[in-house]
């Protein structure tokens, strides 16, 4: 779910870089407000590499398989480090395997990263809105929402960008119908991603709870 080079007009690519620049600046500002930001950098870096590697894990759904994006999970675990982590991961992918692109790096980072930051905030809401729920249902529910919303929103942005930018000759009504149909098609994927995120977060809560404190 990366937009390759050559699809989007230069103005959209430039706008993507501008949004990514602003979001990176905001994320770095939040990171620098932490008591010891340098201590967090190696953790965030190795986890970035681990997420990049873990995104190659796929869920078998015979006769095919579902490829995980993990941007919601990244937000849940890394907090504000999620945005730089996604930017770096996408940079590696564009350079090494040509997945995504260098001109579309800004667009792709914003498309994946902003939903990841939203997922982080959704997961943090468990301390406020989730109080009536017992553990582990509370953590599981908010992790599910973070994972599902993270992927769902990224998929929606992806589809909208592709459909509104490729076939210029399609009429607006057909474009709206296509976005709607493809978005509905992504609902099962968002549910799978949400369930996977919830399972993983509950596992981390049992085994290494400090990983969820970011």
């Amino acid at each position, binding site marked *: 779910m990366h937009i390759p*080079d*050559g699809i989007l007009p230069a103005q959209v690519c430039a706008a993507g870089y501008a949004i990514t620049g602003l979001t990176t600046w905001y994320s770095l500002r939040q990171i620098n407000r932490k008591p010891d930001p340098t*201590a967090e950098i190696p953790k965030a870096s190795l986890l970035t590499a681990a997420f990049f590697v873990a995104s190659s894990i796929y869920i078998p759904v015979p006769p095919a398989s579902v490829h995980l994006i993990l941007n919601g999970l990244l937000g849940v675990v890394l907090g504000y480090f999620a945005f730089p982590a996604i930017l770096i991961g996408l940079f*590696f992918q564009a350079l090494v395997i040509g997945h995504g692109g260098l001109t579309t790096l800004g667009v792709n980072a914003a498309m994946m990263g902003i939903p990841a930051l939203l997922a982080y905030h959704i997961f943090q809401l468990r301390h406020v809105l989730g109080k009536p729920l017992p553990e582990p249902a509370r953590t599981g529910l908010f992790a599910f929402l973070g994972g599902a919303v993270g992927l769902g929103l990224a998929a929606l942005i992806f589809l909208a960008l592709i459909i509104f930018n490729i076939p210029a000759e399609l009429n607006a009504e057909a474009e709206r119908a296509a976005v709607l149909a493809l978005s509905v098609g992504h609902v099962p994927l968002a549910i799978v991603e949400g369930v996977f995120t919830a399972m*993983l977060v509950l596992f*981390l809560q049992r085994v290494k709870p400090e990983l969820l404190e970011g």
Partner: protein
Amino acid sequence: MGAASFDTYVYRESMLHQWSPRLKLVSLAVLMFAFATVRQLALVPWMLGIAALLYGLSGLPLTFLWQRLSYPGLFILALVLVLPFTVGDTVVSQWGWLALRQEGLLATLLIVGRFLSILTLGFILLGTTPFLTLLQAMRSLGLPTILADMTLLSYRYLFEIAAMLATMQQSMRLRGFGQTRQRWLRVNSQTMQQLAMLAGNLLIRSYEQSERVYKAMRLRGYGYGVKPTREQSLPRQPSALSWGLTGAVVAAAVGLIVAEGFLRQ
């Protein structure tokens, strides 16, 4: 991760290998954006020609490009199969219900042309510059320290963590994972749970390793604001060749943008 070999051809001696990394990064980025502005089909051969010329000058073997095109090539295939038959009203040729449309065909040629040209430039950049030099160039162009450090550290441990995952997956298979038959179009919750634990274990191992890495880095002075010596911090002055290449590439980029503007009117 099989295709992930960063520095395979970077130690050759072509003109592009000798190009100052900072100037190369800026020039190729400008050219990529100029390619992204192209909407006139007449400019596509020029764009492909410039990319091919630069690839020729880089001295990189065609196999380098070919291997890396296999993955994004799937995207081209999807585009070629869908766009020419779905977009536009002018039917060029009809086979039963399948109609080849002119607008879709032209849009496909344009997108594929831009895609191949930009991608080739990206691979020229990677193929002629060691990754760490590229990162240093980005750092000198204003990349924030946190981003530079994170990129460097992620790059350093990427292949190690990939090897760790491969070992863990092999161990799972040896213990019988993936042997049970699954029903079609069903997600097996037990399989998913096991995969979630696999990913979770990978995160935990990386996290624990990062604590050891951080302690080792602190012992070597990380985070104490040690500045590089004057010799280390001064970039080498770019050669006349570097300036020449930069001038030519930027002129080509400007030429394409101007031609695009003229042809659009």
